[in-house]
């Protein structure tokens, strides 16, 4: 386990160097999307249409932020539970998505797709939303404004604290962590 400073866009070498359990400070451009936006993104791919942002090498953060106060870049913005996006994620990974940020474990299908296509799943600390907001330096809605908190936003983050959960070799920090601290009754 190591601590890594990462700046987007991530190249293949950076991605393959990441290991489950690594602590990451992520900087650069990322996109937000959660339930409703995923449904729309997948529909666009299936219809062969362009997406609101380039999926190649992209990182998606599963978040629906609280509305900003006047003069505030970002209000509280912690991760939402990732499994609800599992049904959509393999297709997005196939089309170039490289990283996802959320909380909670992923399905076998998503984990397999990360191994196949070279993707990383990062965990942010759920509920620590005010702290995470302070790492967001720019934010703009780029699609589906009508979805409110579920709109797609382009964010620029600076040293956003994350943990690598799933790496490209199929390791899973949830499985490893729970196995280590489980006590049989």
């Amino acid at each position, binding site marked *: 386990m190591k601590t890594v400073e990462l700046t987007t866009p991530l190249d293949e070498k950076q991605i393959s160097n990441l290991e489950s*359990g690594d602590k990451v400070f992520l900087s650069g451009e990322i996109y937000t999307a959660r339930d*409703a936006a995923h449904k729309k993104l997948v529909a666009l791919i299936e219809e062969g249409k362009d997406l609101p942002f380039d999926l190649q090498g992209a990182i998606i953060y599963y*978040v*629906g*932020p*609280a*509305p*900003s*106060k006047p003069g505030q870049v970002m*209000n*509280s*913005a*912690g991760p*939402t*539970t990732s*499994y609800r996006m599992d049904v959509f994620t393999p297709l997005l990974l196939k089309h170039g998505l490289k990283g996802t940020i959320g*909380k*909670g*474990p992923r399905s076998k299908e998503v984990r397999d797709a990360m191994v196949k296509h070279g993707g990383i799943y990062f*965990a942010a*600390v*759920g*509920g*620590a*939303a*005010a*702290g995470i*907001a*302070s790492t967001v330096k720019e934010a703009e809605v780029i699609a589906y404004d009508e*979805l*409110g*908190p*579920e709109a797609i936003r382009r964010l620029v983050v600076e040293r956003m*604290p994350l*943990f690598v*959960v799933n790496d490209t070799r199929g390791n899973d*920090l*949830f499985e*490893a*962590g*729970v*196995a*280590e*601290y*489980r*006590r*049989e*009754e």
Partner: protein
Amino acid sequence: MRELDVSRITEAVADLSIRTNIYLPDDVKKALQESLEREESPLGKEILQVILDNHDISEREKMPICQDTGVAIVFLEVGQDVHFTGGALEDAVNEGVRQGYKEGHLRKSMVADPVIKRKNTTDNTPAVIYTRIVPGDKVKIVFAPKGGGAENMSEVRMMTAADGIDGVKDFVVDRVSRSGGNPCPPIVVGVGLGGSFERCAMLAKEALMRPIGEPNPDPDYNEVEKDILRRINNLGIGPQGLGGRTTALAVHIKMVPCHIASMPVAVNVQCHVSRHGETII
């Protein structure tokens, strides 16, 4: 008879909406602090520290602790000598939610149609309102914003008398085990026993309102709570599900009588942002 203008209800609900989303109850903070001292996993400790630091940031910056500022759960205890004037009680509660969520820059998380259209109502209404008529001329409002992630890990099961207390324990532990890191552990587990299908679910939610550290008034169920908590923490799920000894901060049971054929059991899972506050008018 005491006349009470419903604008008082609106004001109180608006205030509670903002306050509960920024300030966590002291008992929850204390439980998290104690869990940090006990936690064995270095990563678990780090996560607990991030959670505790986040409370300081949210209080200092007046930002919500979590971006999911929840569905507005409102328990009203209305004294039977109160006569409301100036409008409908439930409209006044919803107006309070509308104002509080707007002024507090809290997230609006409600969709009007749960299945087909799923269009955001844009003001976080409607609230989920439970009203009880009680003796007296006061109105007590308990406000509990409930996040979606933990609520999704909740379950009702119609068990039988033959399942007994061991069946109840196994069900609660299994429900938490299957939830893993999804509900933002460390969690608080509310368990409702008895009543009927819907009553036990409400009891489970009411059980979450009990301060952490306050024992169950029934010594038998107090022991059951301790036993379930020990088993849950032996699951190894830990903070955020990434492994550790702190999966739950507390297990709270609330029970009422039930039918001879039934043994309804409900588990309501609460994330570590265990928000609730109350006002008496």
